[in-house]
């Protein structure tokens, strides 16, 4: 812990801290470009010059390149250092164009701030400026190379931190160019971070090009709703339109970066088909009328048939506050059925995880610092991209990465792949801990895990299922390590904690078919898209269906009562991420039809109205409180939940800008359930495994028009050997006959996947949407076939 003096102030910093960081701790701002907390220092911008007056280093040095040592006396205001900084920033600005008015970085330009801070105010250079021909880098990132100051941050982010290899630096002397070898889409799923790290306007967000200045945006700390990791994000809205999402900083979860799904998947908030008015059987209605009808019908059914005839179905994308109100409502009704997740497989996996995690919980930061990672049934880049990024950081520090998965998993780092069938995952884990077969292919893995100091077992909830998670926890205990399991949605963990050992959606479906359940309340879920497969039939047996949702819901027209709710960006609340960390988010803006849509591109209306067009959606917790006839605030709900359930202690004190807090205590696994196939697999069938894809699978992001350009084509993957045995070749259109549906898909061969398995991605608005992700279905393969 060296102690040094900077500008006559003494500071003690941890070992390995550089002088620039030490100065930042004192609140001294020194211009710098190449230094970034996540990327480290390279000393290439030459801007953070300080005068080292006494101690082991003497003279003018770059502060980011000097480790803080005892006895250093440093001056940042020394005339010589200031003069050097002013000269350096003047050189950096020589070729910078005169286009700030049309640059999207304007208003949040670090180059501008640093130029002024560096002491260069008036341009002296009158010569000609260097120009470039820009590249088209795909639908997400806009390039304007003229503005480049060669700080190398983009390459260090894209190649070093994110592991992309299709972007780099090329050229010589003052012709150093940052881009792709050929024009084209940036392939890394983390390409959007270029817009965040570029200190000037070379790389900007194409989806909000020329939309707003940063000072006009309404911004607040929020949580990304597109996977279970709970990355910190800062959405920005203007004129009732969510216009961009940038990465927030949470050192325990995402660190400094987010993935492209989280960054560009915000379009669901502005979706033109988003339901914004309460509806009674498809017809627009007023709030009081709709609320009154819903309340009356539910009390009638509860009084007539009993409270067990009402089912309340939550969702992993609903906030903890609204789920808690829903859960409490079930009790208040006298024992209505409550289930937190419409997808039974994911629900059971999540509940199993909440029951087992406890002290085995590890954070993404722990993953980044791990020295041996075993990924079982987890495809990070498709299921939870930031886990892939964290795995890369561990690998860069020398960690060994081993993947056991039936899919052709790709990672942005080197790893060892052990192929296996989707149903053999639990057995493989069992073999891993049993010492009876010491010489199988798992023996090296066993040794690695025993030798490692900080190993972590990562899993994917979809493929592991509840049995797999139990095995993974047993393996974690055997090796004395922790777990990091990804789940289905942003609040899967919270929903599972509240569900406890209550029924799952499958059971609710059975009871609906049996006529025991007469009324169903769906909170922010689409049971037709994400529910059990029999849901469509079961819904027909209901007397009353109430839906609360903010996304275009298939049932919004059919439901007896539909009530519009707000999205994550339009309300405040709490989500519990996959490691049981409660993360709160605050309101970015109030709902309403975006001005760009309501004015059809023209100027805003020239008339005044006391209400906002499309401003009717209300936060789900508020709607639920009104349905219960109460007047509640999120603070009251949080305090009540804390008081009722000690696992959520500290909930009311959470800070949206903070790092969140783990829940105290676990949940219950779901009750026993028959998981065998209803029918034996037919002769000659192959298991069809439908899995999540980075783009196109997650419901909210699939509604974002910005992601349309990267939507993958539906196709089915097969191992070349399996294909050859059946006389199929790449590009064939094959017909797939499943119990659910028959459809045809184009065949693609992949040698990295497990043989004897059909692999398809669960794309929204295709027949594949109906399949529960991660659980194999027997499927007969035929040649040809009509249209998909």
């Amino acid at each position: 812990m060296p102690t040094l003096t900077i500008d006559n102030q003494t500071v003690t910093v941890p070992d390995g801290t550089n002088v620039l960081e030490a100065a930042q701790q004192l609140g001294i701002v020194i211009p710098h470009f190449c230094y970034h907390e996540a990327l480290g220092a390279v000393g290439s911008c030459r801007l953070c010059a300080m005068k080292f007056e006494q101690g082991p280093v003497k003279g003018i040095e770059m502060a980011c390149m000097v480790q803080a040592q005892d006895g250093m006396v440093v001056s940042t205001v020394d005339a010589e250092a200031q003069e050097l900084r002013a000269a350096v920033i003047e050189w950096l600005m020589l070729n910078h164009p005169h286009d700030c008015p049309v640059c999207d970085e304007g208003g949040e330009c670090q180059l501008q701030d640093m130029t002024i801070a560096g002491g260069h105010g008036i341009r002296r250079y009158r010569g000609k400026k260097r120009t470039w021909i820009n590249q088209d880098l795909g639908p997400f990132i806009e390039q304007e190379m003229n503005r480049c100051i060669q700080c190398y941050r983009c390459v260090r982010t894209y190649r070093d931190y994110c592991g992309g290899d299709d972007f780099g630096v090329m050229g010589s002397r003052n012709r150093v160019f940052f881009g792709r070898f050929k024009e084209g889409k940036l392939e890394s799923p983390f390409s959007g971070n270029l817009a965040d790290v570029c200190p000037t306007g070379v790389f900007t967000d194409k989806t909000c090009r020329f939309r707003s200045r940063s000072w006009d945006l309404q911004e607040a700390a929020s949580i990304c709703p597109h996977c279970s990791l709970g990355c910190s994000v800062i959405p920005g809205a203007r004129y009732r339109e969510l216009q961009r999402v940038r990465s927030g900083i949470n050192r325990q979860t995402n660190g400094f970066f987010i993935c492209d799904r989280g960054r560009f998947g915000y379009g669901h908030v502005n979706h033109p088909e988003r339901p914004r008015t309460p509806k009674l059987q498809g017809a627009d209605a007023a709030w009081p009328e709709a609320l009154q009808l819903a309340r009356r019908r539910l009390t009638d059914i509860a009084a007539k048939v009993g409270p067990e005839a009402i089912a309340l179905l939550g969702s992993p994308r609903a906030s903890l506050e609204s789920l808690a109100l829903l859960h409490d409502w079930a009790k208040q009704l006298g024992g209505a059925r409550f289930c937190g997740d419409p997808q039974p497989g994911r629900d059971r996996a999540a509940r199993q995880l909440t029951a087992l995690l406890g002290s085995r919980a590890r954070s993404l930061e722990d993953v980044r610092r791990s020295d041996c990672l075993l990924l079982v049934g987890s495809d990070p880049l498709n299921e939870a991209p930031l886990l892939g990024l964290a795995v890369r950081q561990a690998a860069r520090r020398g960690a060994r990465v081993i993947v056991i998965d039936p899919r052709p998993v790709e990672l942005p780092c080197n790893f060892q792949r052990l192929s296996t069938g989707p149903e053999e995952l639990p057995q493989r884990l069992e073999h891993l801990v049993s010492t009876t077969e010491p010489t199988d292919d798992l023996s090296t893995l066993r040794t690695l895990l025993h030798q490692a100091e900080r190993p972590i077992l990562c899993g994917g909830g979809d493929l592991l299922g509840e049995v797999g998670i139990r095995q993974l926890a047993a393996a974690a205990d055997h090796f004395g390590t922790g777990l990091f399991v990804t789940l289905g949605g942003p609040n899967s963990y919270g929903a599972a904690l509240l569900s406890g050992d209550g029924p799952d959606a499958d059971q609710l479906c059975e009871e609906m078919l049996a006529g025991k359940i007469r009324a169903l309340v769906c909170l922010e879920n689409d049971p037709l898209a994400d529910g059990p497969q029999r849901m469509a039939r079961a819904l027909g047996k209901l007397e009353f269906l109430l839906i609360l949702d903010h996304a275009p819901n298939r049932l919004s027209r059919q439901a007896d009562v539909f009530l519009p709710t707000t999205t994550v960006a339009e309300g405040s609340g709490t989500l519990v991420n996959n490691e049981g960390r409660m993360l709160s988010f605050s309101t970015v803006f109030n709902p309403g039809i975006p001005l760009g849509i309501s004015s059809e591109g023209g100027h805003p209306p020239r008339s005044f109205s006391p209400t906002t067009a499309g401003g009717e959606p209300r936060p789900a917790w508020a709607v639920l409180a009104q349905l219960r006839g109460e007047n509640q605030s999120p603070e009251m709900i949080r305090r009540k939940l804390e008081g009722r359930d000690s696992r959520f202690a500290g909930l009311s004190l959470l800070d949206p800008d903070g790092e969140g807090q783990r829940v105290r205590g676990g949940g219950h696994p779901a009750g026993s359930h028959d998981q065998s196939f209803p029918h034996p697999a037919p002769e000659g069938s192959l298991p069809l495994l439908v899995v999540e894809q980075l783009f196109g699978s997650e419901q909210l992001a699939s509604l974002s028009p910005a992601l349309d350009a990267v939507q993958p084509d539906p196709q089915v993957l097969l191992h070349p050997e399996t294909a050859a045995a059946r006389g199929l070749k790449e590009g064939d259109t094959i017909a797939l006959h499943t119990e659910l549906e028959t459809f045809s898909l184009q065949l693609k061969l992949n040698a990295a996947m497990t043989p004897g398995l059909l692999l398809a991605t669960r794309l929204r608005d295709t027949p594949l949407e109906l399949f529960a992700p991660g659980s194999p279905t027997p499927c007969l393969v035929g040649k040809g076939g009509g249209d998909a």
Partner: protein
Amino acid sequence: MNLYQDIKATAQAYWITLRNMFRKPVTIQYPEQKRVPFERYRARIVLTRDPDGGERCVACYLCSAACPVDCISMQAAEAEDGRRYATWFRINFTRCIFCGMCTEACPTRAIQMTADYEICRRDPLTLVYEKEDLLIDGPGKEPDYNFYRHAGIGVVNPRGQGEEERPPADVRSLLP
């Protein structure tokens, strides 16, 4: 003593009135008679065009940021040729205090103030000016300035062929 003061004050007041009776009056018979303001008088705001006839405004939002009463609003968009322009631009003259901060902030000389001071209407909504009400046909002050000729992003001239630009760098060249 008091009597002397009273007489003096009365006489002085009459004297001032008497003296001004023979002066030329400063008031004019508005609106029959109109005053011609100075060239740099700050009144009704206009949006000007560059010497080539294109809109000067690039919708950079600096005027709306500088405006102390928040009377300017706009939405930027990109034209097919890459030009940034305002799809709509609104100045609420019921709120404007004619301070001139917007013209000072404008980096492209688009927003300028004219000497037209006669801006009053019975209906306040008619004082909310849209882009078509604001845009004039001429360049106004600084008639030769065209921002895009200096920006180097290649809207009015191909990239790298502006007066202050070198031709685009050749990335693949290995020459020293």
